[in-house]
């Protein structure tokens, strides 16, 4: 990682978060929660990393060429559309956007999986998808009316 957790907090205190957001650190975080569990000051660092990810996406400040933000955004699109996310279509979509030639590397893997019947093709759309949309919509309204100052693209109250 370009910036260690301590350096992230120091950067925040100094108003120099941008350098952190542009580093590889934010999207390297795999949410293993080891930091949160061990921190002697009880800081929920993993949650902070999530917030940095969201900030980075919101303000377009991410490490150049990073695949992880693309993967997360694609994931969100799929959930919003289908309610579930099958892995292969997800990975395919991400590779198409970031490294189309990488799909070739995946073919041997894909073949092996296909031969063993482990390849899902179409995402399953849940019936409650419109329900979820309605709830999301109500959430936005709630934010606009100032119920909860949360993060989320352009939804600051």
């Amino acid at each position: 990682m370009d910036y260690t957790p301590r350096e992230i907090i120091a950067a925040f205190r100094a108003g120099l978060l941008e350098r952190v957001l542009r580093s590889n650190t934010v999207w390297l975080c795999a949410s293993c929660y080891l930091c949160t569990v061990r921190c002697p000051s009880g800081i929920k660092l993993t949650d902070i990393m999530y917030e940095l990810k969201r900030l980075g996406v919101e303000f377009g400040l991410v490490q150049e060429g990073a695949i992880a933000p693309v993967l997360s955004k694609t994931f969100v699109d799929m959930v919003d559309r289908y309610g579930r996310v099958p892995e292969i279509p997800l990975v395919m979509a991400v590779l198409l956007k970031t490294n189309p030639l990488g799909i070739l590397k995946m073919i041997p893997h894909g073949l092996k999986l296909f031969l063993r019947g482990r390849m899902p093709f179409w995402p399953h759309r849940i019936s409650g998808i419109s329900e979820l949309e309605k709830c999301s919509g109500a959430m936005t309204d709630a934010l606009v009316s100032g119920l909860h100052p949360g993060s989320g693209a352009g939804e600051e109250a």
Partner: protein
Amino acid sequence: MGSRLEFSYYPGCSLEGMNKAYDKSARVVSKELGIDLTELNDWNCCGASAYMSIQELRAHLLSARNLALAEKEKKDLAVVCPACLTTLTKSNRYMGEDPKLRRTIASALKAANLQYLGTVKVRHLLEVIVRDIGEQEVKARVSRPLSDLKVAPYYGCQFTRPFGDFDDKEFPVMLDTLLKWLGAEPVNFPLKAKCCGGMLMTTNEPVGLGLVRSLLDCAAQNGAECVATICPLCHITLEAYQGNVNKRFATSYKLPTLYFTQLMGLAFGFNRKELGINEELISSKHILAKHVEAV
């Protein structure tokens, strides 16, 4: 909530496609142990790490809908994926602790005539089996002990971290204990709760491969004949990329990777097909032949 052994089953997205074997074997052994797993109808993706990385509140909403649906069934939620476990538990906890969050989500759910009153508990199947079912009941069903099959018990990160107070957060023992009940020999595995990298294998391959290499190396050094997993993402990460690891690091790992439910099923007398073991990418035939009768 509900009877001790009745759960709403939440498989999670990764069990629908590449990891159907986990779903299959989980249902098989649960039935055998008298755990009623009725799939939660029309469940939606929990969002895992990815959704929370983009949207905080909508991520909580995803969990809340599942919890609301489960609450209607008046049963607790049983999961087999630690990411689902952590994500659902996080929303559950945070809504419980933060009244503002609770109210926001509640008003969002209302739009679909849903409500969640905070009564559902989310539990991983491994924890249910070890703590609720217990040694006697499990051992009673072992008709085909795994005869000292050397297994590296791999927990991954999100089984005990951050909310899993039921076991140690860095050196858990639940899976080790279960493996012993099945007659297998859990080997010393210091990296048992260290991260496999998860999605990093896709988003940052060198880092991902390095992490998997450490895990495989540690398992092999400690004499493991196979690795037992309790997470579908850990499973695919460990299983599918051993070739890539070998290419990059000039190693020769070929470690069969099995779900804990598959190992249980074998010990209970089920065959490879019933447990989805025939879908594996690295063959476990030889090690099973050595230790488990007539597989």
